[in-house]
């Protein structure tokens, strides 16, 4: 920011500040940002990117305001100061990108009318659903198994005790069909 309330860091979460302007705070992957003070590594990275894009939005708004002013002796200086501030924040944004690139972090801004309205961030250690990439996936499938004539499911005595496979009789499962959970 170019005013006296310059934050101590380019990446400080602006939301607790008294001059916070919610209109300029982008969405994160189309959703609200993590809570202020989040400590989980990926959340901290998200907040840093949002902070810098928020700052850029604020400066962009300021620049638009300055450019809309009539030509005055002070306007040119104000315009230059705002452009310098934008450059500083762009450098800071690039620094963030550089710092986290080796971790597989990609932060792609989505802009509208010159303002960043959303930042799509992905991480090297998480998939698109926020799960660690090394986590195993459990895929559940309903597998109908025809029973012999005259036999109902209630007639069967089924005990399966193997990791990843379990019989179930759920509301969604056909009464005559055991279902296997496949991992």
């Amino acid at each position, binding site marked *: 920011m170019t005013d006296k309330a310059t934050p101590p860091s380019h990446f400080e979460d602006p939301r607790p500040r008294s001059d916070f302007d919610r209109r300029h705070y982008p969405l994160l992957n189309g959703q609200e940002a993590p809570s202020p003070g989040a400590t989980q590594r990926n959340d901290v990275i998200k907040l840093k990117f949002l902070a810098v894009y928020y700052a850029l939005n604020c400066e962009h708004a300021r620049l638009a305001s300055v450019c809309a002013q009539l030509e005055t002796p002070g306007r040119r200086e104000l315009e230059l100061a705002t452009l310098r501030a934008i450059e500083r924040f762009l450098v800071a944004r690039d620094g963030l990108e550089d710092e986290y690139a*080796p971790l597989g972090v990609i932060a792609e801004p989505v802009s509208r009318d010159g303002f960043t309205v959303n930042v799509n961030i992905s991480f090297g250690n*998480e998939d698109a659903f926020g799960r660690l990439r090394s986590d195993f996936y459990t895929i559940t499938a309903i597998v109908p198994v025809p029973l012999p004539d005259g036999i109902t499911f209630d007639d069967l005595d089924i005990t399966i005790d193997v990791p990843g496979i379990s019989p179930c009789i759920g509301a969604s499962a056909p009464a005559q069909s055991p279902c296997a959970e496949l991992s």
Partner: protein
Amino acid sequence: MRRIILTNYQAPGDVVMLTAALRDLHRCHPGEFLTDVDTDWPELWENNPYLTPLDRNDPNVQVVECRYPLIELANQRPVHFVHGFIEDLNHQLGLSIRPARVAGDIHLSTEEKLGPSPVEAITNAQLPYWIIVAGGKFDCTIKWWHFRRWQVVVDRLRDRIQFVQIGAPEHYHPPLRGVLDLRRRTSHRHLVRLVYHAQGVLCPVTFLMHLAAAVEAKPGEPSPRPCVVVAGGREPATWEAYPGHRFLHTIGMLPCCLTGGCWRSRSVPLGDGDRKDRPERLCLDTVNNLPRCMDMITPEQVVEAIESYRPSPETPPGAEPAPLNFGFGASRDVASVDAVGVR
């Protein structure tokens, strides 16, 4: 006639190398085998003339799990990846296959060759292009070059080469400016066609590098296809580099890759719980979290390597060499350089 099904469930680049083994099996033992394959990447086998549908439940069919343990000796013996599956098949089946080419064996249909390139299908223009991969898989981040360096290369060649960026959605592929962005939009078959129509390829050691060698060159285009590989010191050039490729490596230049590739996995821990975060899998020498071997390769060297695909050496002595004009289909041959060390 022996009936065998070759199986392998590794990455697509590995399966490209298996196509070479299948080709050479039939070339060295013609008429002796009926063969089929079972891999995770069926698109790489489309139009392959060596396939016959076989039933793995048929008692006359032998299922052969294909591996390449030869890789364990890649730092000691002068062998290429193309030898990997071949030596394993020789061992398992008692054969004497020899590689016929240092390249995989991907086949296109006539329709695929004559049809528009995937780029033309999008742009409605016959646009000459190079393909660029600016990232890679998360299990091997040590292969990544910094995305700003890829960007510098694209910027430096902006007026001469149209780059088409590709990459799978589940991998790391940061967006580049000034490219045609086909990230997340290419199936493996699209990619085969994209490579066929491409003038060149720029990438790290990856699936695309193998495809660049395995997909035949379009008539009138240089063969082998120009390909610049930003390789660093993870893998020995003898194992990975293809004839005609510019393989930018640092083997012998750093203590950690003095006599061979380090074969490590990651530059820094990703924190995803993968065993490749363990210290023994991490790069020993990083500069700003980039492996030093990759840091040593500069955008200027990569640009120079691309530009080294000069016009025809048949240019009469003393004649002014034709200006580089990759963007508009300039005819040129390829200097035969197997591996270029970074100096």
